[in-house]
């Protein structure tokens, strides 16, 4: 890239789509996956995802027809893979809103290349996550009792003191706002797809979805306002959702759960894992759908920096938990943390620390931050590490509680693993379908940051500067 060779690198630190792009090309490139018959690559990926989904559906069938007993849980360890998966997927869902809303408010223009897929990821991750609170109940057909709806059971109401109920509100609010935010952002692009439609069915469907978008000044004015408001509404949710998810643990009396650091620690962890997942997806998608010009290495490099930063925060939280355990003087608390690092689940703890704290340190080096293969591998490690973080928090705290007589050990069954695999199936199936039916890159937004061209090819600014 040209401007990397001069002082512009420092003046304009934001990553940027390739300079050669024109509006027309953007529209053609972004709409292309929607308008052609999917290639072999997509079909292979999709059938793989369907395979995983099938495993998930079989696991759910077995679970619902037989009972929670198909899992490896016991009377000491009431939660393991189920809530681990829930928190893991909710965490994944965080990057989307962070990228869309917070970076939007901070005018981080580079987000435009990745925000659409990140938001889609959020929606699908939250949908996947939402399955687990439902399925982890012993009687999922009664799980609707968790909603405070008017009923005929006398004064029976939900328990507003239960963090699990706060979860229901937090997650459903988060899902609603994220979905609306995503959909509003999609409207101009859907209108573009509608306008390019060659047959009636596409015209009707995309026409309906675009809600009569004409691209008029009035449309744009309202759109920008709504988008800004929604961004403002979503921002606190990024912090609140995972804070509330962490209350599930922090509000309890169990050593290892009963910790005040959990809300910020969980939020940092969620951003950490969310970015890692966005990175994993984008590295694949930009290759498969040929969007290298839009999602550049500079974008990914920025994400690497965020991953490293949040990774360090998470590492700090790990260390601080140990300090507080020692400082608290509570023998139960101290035991729990020593047991975490050196007990029967030490393997899980050190997997977590290695993946989340040690390995991301390679991003201190620019060479590593710009090497796609390294990035991809590390993003996978972070995903694994963050899954283990939740597993470690949940299982190692539960398995050796106050009374040693009830100490236990959790070993997953094939149905635990099946549902974990299946959750990836659900997620990837939805994501791959998304890449076929909706524009993966926010065309309207990316056009706004394309540089003006002069004949000599020297840029002056972006459209937005003029607007």
């Amino acid at each position, binding site marked *: 890239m040209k401007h990397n060779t001069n002082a512009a690198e420092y003046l304009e630190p934001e990553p940027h789509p390739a300079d050669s792009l024109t509006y027309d090309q953007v529209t053609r490139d972004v709409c292309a996956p929607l308008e052609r018959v999917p290639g072999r690559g997509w079909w292979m990926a999709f059938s793989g995802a369907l395979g995983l989904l099938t495993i998930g559906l079989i696991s759910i069938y077995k679970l619902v027809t037989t009972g929670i007993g198909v899992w490896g849980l016991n009377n000491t360890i009431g939660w393991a893979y189920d809530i681990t998966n829930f928190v893991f997927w909710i965490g994944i869902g965080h990057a989307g809103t962070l990228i869309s809303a917070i970076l939007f408010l901070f005018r981080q223009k580079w987000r435009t290349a990745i925000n659409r897929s990140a938001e889609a990821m959020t929606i699908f991750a939250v949908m996947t996550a939402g399955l687990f609170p439902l399925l982890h109940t*012993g009687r999922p057909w009664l799980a609707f009792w968790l909603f405070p709806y008017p009923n005929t059971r006398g004064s029976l109401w939900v328990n507003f003191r239960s963090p699990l109920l706060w979860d229901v509100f937090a997650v459903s609010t988060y899902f609603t706002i994220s979905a609306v935010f995503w959909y509003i952002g999609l409207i101009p692009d859907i209108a573009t797809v509608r306008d390019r439609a060659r047959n009636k069915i596409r015209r009707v469907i995309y026409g309906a979805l675009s809600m009569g978008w004409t691209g008029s000044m009035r449309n744009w004015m309202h759109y920008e306002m709504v988008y800004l408001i929604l961004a403002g509404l979503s921002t606190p949710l990024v912090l609140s959702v995972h804070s509330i998810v962490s209350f599930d643990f922090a509000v309890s009396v169990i050593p290892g759960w009963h910790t005040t650091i959990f809300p910020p620690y969980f939020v940092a962890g969620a951003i950490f894992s969310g970015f890692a997942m966005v990175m994993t997806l984008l590295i694949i998608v930009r290759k498969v759908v040929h969007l290298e010009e839009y999602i550049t290495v500079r974008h990914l490099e920025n994400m690497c920096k965020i991953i490293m930063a949040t990774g360090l925060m998470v590492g700090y939280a790990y260390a601080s938990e140990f300090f507080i355990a020692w400082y608290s003087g509570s023998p*139960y608390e101290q035991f729990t943390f020593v047991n975490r690092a050196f007990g029967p689940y030490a393997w899980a703890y050190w997997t977590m620390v290695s993946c989340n704290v040690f390995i991301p340190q390679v991003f201190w080096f620019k060479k590593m931050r710009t090497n796609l293969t390294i990035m991809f591998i590390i993003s996978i490690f972070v995903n694994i590490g963050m899954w283990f973080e939740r597993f470690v928090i949940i299982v190692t705290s539960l398995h050796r509680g106050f009374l040693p007589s009830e100490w236990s050990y959790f070993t997953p069954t094939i149905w635990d693993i099946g549902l974990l695999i299946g959750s990836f199936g659900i997620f990837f199936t939805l994501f791959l379908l998304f890449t076929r039916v909706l524009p993966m890159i926010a065309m309207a937004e990316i056009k706004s940051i394309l540089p003006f061209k002069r004949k000599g090819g020297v840029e002056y600014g972006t459209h937005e500067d003029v607007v």
Partner: protein
Amino acid sequence: MSTKLTYWKTLEQKDRTEEAIAAENREFFVLPKENDEADQSQPVERRDFLKLLGMGAAMTAIAACARRPVEKIIPYLNKPEEITFGVPNWYASTCNECPAACGTLVKTREGRPIKMEGNPNHPVSKGGLCARGQASMVNLYDPDRLRGPVTMKRKAGAGESIEWGAVDSIIGTALDQISDGRGNVRVLMSTTTSPATKAAVQQFASAFRGGEVVWFDPISYENVIAAQELSYGTAVLPRYRFNKADYILSFGSDFLGTQISPVEFTKGFAAKRALDGKKPSMSRFTAIESVPSTTGDNADRRIPVKPGDELAVAAAIAHTLIIQQGHGAADAAVRSFLSSYDAKTVAASTGVDAKVIATVASELWANRGRGIVIGGQAAPGNTQALALELVVNLLNSALGNDGAMIDGTARPSNQALGSYAAALNLITEMMNGSVDLLLIRGVNPAYVFAANDLFAKASAKVPLIISFNDRLDETSEFVDYVCPDHHALESWGDAEPQRGVFSIQQPTISPLFNTRAFQESLLMWAQKSKCSAGALETYNNWYDFLRGYWQKTIYPTTGVNAPSFNAFWDSVLRDGVIVANHNDNGSSRSFRSSGFSTLPAASLNNSTDMYLTLYTPMGLYDGRHANNAWLQELPDPVTKITWDNYVSIAPATAKTLGLNKGDIIKVDTGSTQLEAPIHILPGMHPQGLAIAVGYGRTKSGKVGNGVGVNAFALAAINAKAANWTGIATKIQKTGSNMMLACTQGHQTMEGRPIVKEATFEEFAKNPHAGNEEHHHLITMWDKHKYPGHKWGMAINLNTCTGCSACVIACQAENNIPTVGKDQVARDRVMHWMRIDRYYKGDEANPEVVNQPMLCQHCDNAPCETVCPVIATAHSDEGLNQQIYNRCVGTRYCANNCPYKARKFNFLTYDSAANPEAPLHLMLNPEVTVRTRGVMEKCTFCVQRIEEKKSWAKDRGIALPDGELKTACQQSCPADAIVFGDANNPDSKLAKLMKNPRGYNLLAELNTAPAVTYLTKIRNV
């Protein structure tokens, strides 16, 4: 509306007439008619029609969704007078699950017994009932019981059903042939304390010239009786008065678990250790044993010895006391016997510290006349064991304990009659072909004598064998007819567990199957045949015989001055028990030393071989309870393992041999080889091995078949005796391993203040000893208000022996499912009440504490706040309530429970939710059964609370303290559990809560539990 309208439609409107105003205020000109004024021509109004249509559609949809099983309710056409729906009837009866014959009260609902409880008025068991007694219901409703008599094809192991009439005529004919000829009839029976049954059997046997009754118990105490005869001249099983003993020294005895009369012994033992008096006093208990037992776990001082070394240590104590210190008289026989057992030699040989021997001897002397020395290992058929019993008697006599503490004269026990000697003699007779007819009742000789097919071979020589067992067991393969006896809860009977203490056994349900009381069968056959069986022939049925026996034999001895026998009989039925012999103070007997001269020369065993001991398990006893899922799933009080037996081995030995938990080893006693998994048990002697009998049944039923291995086969059997202790054994690794389902995850307290304890010395100085730490917690919230009752519980950790009677009592009361070995291994056992057992100190000889653990009904319950649907709530009487219907099963409450008292239904556990018929009759109708996906836990027996509250309300009185008992409390033989109202300052509970020994578990969490534990005190 009063203004005049500008525009109007009608004149009425214009003039604002009343009708017009009313019409304007109506929405419609024509109102829909009410139903009652509906026009006949229009039977359904449009709106009604729409309502009905909508409702019909909705109802159809709902009806299509709901599964509606067909259920038939058949009311009583003529309701029996004594039955009121929903109100239980209680019958006094006698437990028959082991020979101890504890008095019981049987709770029946709508004609079916659902729970058995101890009879508080019974002078022997005093209201306690052990785990086996509590599990009696499962035996009654066992689906594997025979449905009626069966004619067997020997060897084939299968049979065909036959009518009682046909059996009777066949056997009647056979009896005629026998009585014409030689007439060697044998009745092989396990101990019954029933005087009427004994009379009936004796009369039947004596109808034949060579008829005999052979008493045989696989768990036999014949050596105690034999030693009594040698020492005192009478073959008697003494009564041990633990309630008076200040000092107890036991040699391999399990008197708190399985030996002779454990409920009675536990009552007495606990009474001396409750520490509830004003002046602190407590007995001291030293246990010398080779297998850690429930009893040894409760000792103040436990000394592990090599199996077989108990004699040497006992003799060394006697040597110190009698020879060295010159206490008590000692003649030449005693001197010569004890001469080789001086403390130093024994200490060198057994590894028991000579100082300890001296200390025990001096403690015994200090407590002379107030102590009990007890042996009584089961089935020790070698001379060593007999010698041990003689030394025990010697010590008791020398110390003056005999008579005062050990009653062999006034009210001795009838609770063990059987002997291996008699049974083995019978087998010899059978081998010789001299037995014409063998009747078997209550024993399973083919299982007990499985080694070398001893019984199988012997049975081939007997022309006719009849079994009265309730199922097609191992023995039935070798018999001709199985004539199933009633279960004790279906039949009449009586008991005399100790001389002059008579109790009655009433049927509480009409027989479930086409079975017949064993005594009635004898009666029928005696009458069908030509043989003359005395009085047996003069009664129409067993009930008449029993009643007649009581009228003629028992009634006159009781000294009761009743208006008539009928009145007496009715009062006995009501009370369940009558004491004819009020003299329970034994007198001391003169000790004869001649027994010692019959013994071979003493020798100390200095070998380094491994020695095996067989022991009686708490649950399965001699194997008779193998098909009882409750008892199979009852964690062994010592090892906490369920659904298996195993070879226990010392940790040091396991390390040396490179053995891990569950490794299968080959046990070789020279005559028998057996493969079994090992369990590494702290407190085992390094040269010791131990395995429980009662497992390894092959034909007990669906539950018990193939569980464990048959350790009876390892007993060293010769022509006269079977020996269970000190069997020289070689072990060998097999390389394979199996999983043992243990309910306890970790065995030590990790230094946490879970069971607080102190020594007696510390306690005497400061009653707060061990319990000094009190947490001063601050809170910003108001406390709960408990305007009426505030239920609570106190558990005395000093008297709890860990016997686990409460676990099964709770299971029976609350319809708790059994889950099976696989689920137990996954830590999903459902018991609401569990006994946590922790080790402390050296693993070679650890201290043991037991802690009953149940829902603590916290005032600030962590479970209550986290349930999202309020399925668990706090009652205004302090109960933490679980609402099954509302529970969606998030398990958050269980995660947040510091006591891990909550149990989740991970699967549909059919054993409670949908049991196989007729087990469903056993369910307590007052307690809902739970489906899968629902959390459950201890309710403090809320159904009992409500019942007693109504009871008090009916009478218009305040509920008296002690009237209300939870199931665990009622059953506890140690009276360790007290339930009551903390708001009543005079209640026992309120006082115990203020006891300096009282503490709340994990009080620093501010959960404010309703359960108070009282510290454990060790008298060391």
